[in-house]
């Protein structure tokens, strides 16, 4: 029996742009999840690290006087929002690493030689993947936080938490993907991740309120994007959701829940606009 390896019958029906986009994006996303399934260490580490923060930092300040923090929050409850945001932030900051490795090992060229309907599917698959992972990790932290007695947001609060996290994850993923195409290799990308990660955490309201900080650090924390994600989530954990309520007492003035979300939306849109020319050039 002879087999022609050069040709085969293929479907001749016309396919829509959306069908093609869905097929290529699904295939690329599936690849990333298969990698995760077979190498789950990054997912596990991404949950373990913030868990350790939560348990150790929670214990460290567990004996702090109840009236020390604003609104009489316990430190554990105060810390929960910070660790949830830190988890999502750290996960999203790593979004560029798989893309960087694909660039370095030439796998990206395999994708670029294929007749993709839109090379945005490469970016879209990374965004889907990182968003899912970051949310999974954040929910794991929220569950643990609940188990430790640090509370659980109501249903409206949960929606606010998810919405806020999505905005943060989109923004940081855009930044990380931009870096993955702008930097020469994974060493440089990892260096940027290392440098950005902890300072951004400490210069935010994740671990302490602005009122505890020296003036210069208070200013830094008040303009740190993480703070704009932490405060609405903290408010969602503190009581009924009211976005018109002031959630951040910044040196430049009070900021409401709406204000925080608008800032996050602005940062997300701004970052995607900022990296678009780079992505267009690299994926042209």
């Amino acid at each position: 029996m002879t087999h022609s390896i050069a040709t085969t019958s293929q479907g001749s029906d016309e396919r829509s742009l959306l069908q093609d986009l869905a097929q290529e994006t699904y295939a690329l996303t599936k690849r990333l999840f298969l990698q995760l399934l077979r190498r789950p260490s990054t997912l596990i580490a991404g949950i373990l690290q913030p868990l350790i923060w939560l348990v150790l930092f929670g214990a460290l300040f567990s004996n702090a006087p109840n009236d020390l923090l604003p609104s009489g929050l316990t430190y554990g409850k105060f810390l929960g929002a910070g660790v949830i945001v830190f988890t999502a932030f750290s996960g999203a900051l790593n979004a560029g690493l798989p893309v960087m490795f694909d660039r370095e090992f030439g796998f990206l060229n395999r994708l670029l030689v294929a007749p993709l309907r839109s090379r945005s599917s490469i970016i879209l698959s990374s965004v889907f993947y990182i968003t899912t992972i970051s949310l999974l990790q954040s929910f794991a932290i929220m569950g643990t936080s609940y188990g430790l007695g640090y509370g659980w947001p109501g249903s409206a609060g949960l929606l606010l938490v998810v919405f806020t996290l999505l905005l943060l994850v989109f923004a940081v993923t855009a930044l990380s993907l931009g870096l993955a195409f702008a930097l020469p290799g994974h060493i440089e990308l990892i260096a940027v991740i290392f440098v950005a990660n902890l300072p951004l955490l400490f210069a935010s309201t994740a671990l302490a309120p602005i009122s505890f900080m020296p003036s210069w650090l208070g200013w830094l924390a008040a303009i740190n994007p993480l703070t704009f994600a932490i405060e609405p989530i903290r408010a969602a954990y503190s009581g009924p959701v009211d976005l018109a309520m002031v959630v951040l007492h910044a040196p430049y003035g009070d900021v409401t829940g709406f204000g925080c979300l608008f800032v996050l939306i602005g940062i997300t849109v701004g970052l995607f606009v900022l990296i678009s020319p780079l992505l267009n050039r690299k994926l042209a």
Partner: protein
Amino acid sequence: MALIEIENLVKSYGKVCALNGLNLNVPQATLYGLLGPNGAGKTTTLRILCTLLSPDSGHVSIAGIDILKHPISVRKILGYVAQEVAIDKILTGRELLQLQGNLYHMHYSDIDKRIRELNLRLDMFDWIDRRCGSYSGGMRRRLDLACGLLHSPTLLILDEPTVGLDIESRSSIWELLVELKSQGTTILLSSHYLEEVEALADQMAIIDGGKVIAEGDPENLKNQLGGDRVTLRVREFSDEIEAQSVRNILESIQGVSQVVVNRLQGFSLNLVVDNQAAVNRMRERLEEENVQVFSLSQSRPSLDDVYLQATGRTIMDAEMEVLKQRDTKAEAKNSMR
């Protein structure tokens, strides 16, 4: 009819000019070989054809489609097997092929059918469901070829497909390429292995310094040269001064031409003789000059001789020269998107 038409292609990496007005026509349903030393511009040409790289200037069309204006249409009809095998070590071979099929928007049933066909032809049964990280070089290359063939391309572009492979893997890839050509696929293959191009190509071009310096049927190219090739050694390991003085003697002998000192072969001398009488004259003259002959071999012209005739140096010499001039940083930057 030419499937690939390249006109006056120019591409530079920093200050180094990789392509310097390259012209090439590849006929349909042929196996076309691109031969040249490393750094001659072969990979750059192939990367432009695959739409991975934009030229600085020039025109390229595949099957009448301008690749710069309609890159997606071109990508649909070509398969590319790069020099470096880019596989995802975490996926299995089958999963990689499925991914490839989805990126080419094939129907799921067609993907499975093609995987079955390629599995059978490339004998991948034993390992296709194992993770790619455990594959040998030959397995990786076969899988890479299967990826390039999955969507049944009209044109298959291969960049140094057998580099670093064992003899068995190499010959099985050669067999496959011959089979593909017989089934109507046009194959453009770059190589710096003379014997590979000689054995496979119907048509070929020799590239040097970013230009085509000779093209045609490999047999015709060799026959056009005429004369026999002689390699002469005066000692097992000579030196440059000695080799140059013998070269001066040889150049004065009637019927002897193109005398070149081959530094990479211990300063041996490569030359062309018109006939046997010229060889005899050469022996007599060397004896008169008290020059001992350690070894003398005579052969019909090879493709290396075609290259030597066109450039005045051997492919090995050219590789050494080009190696010094290459801006590897600029090339790496350009090859990594």
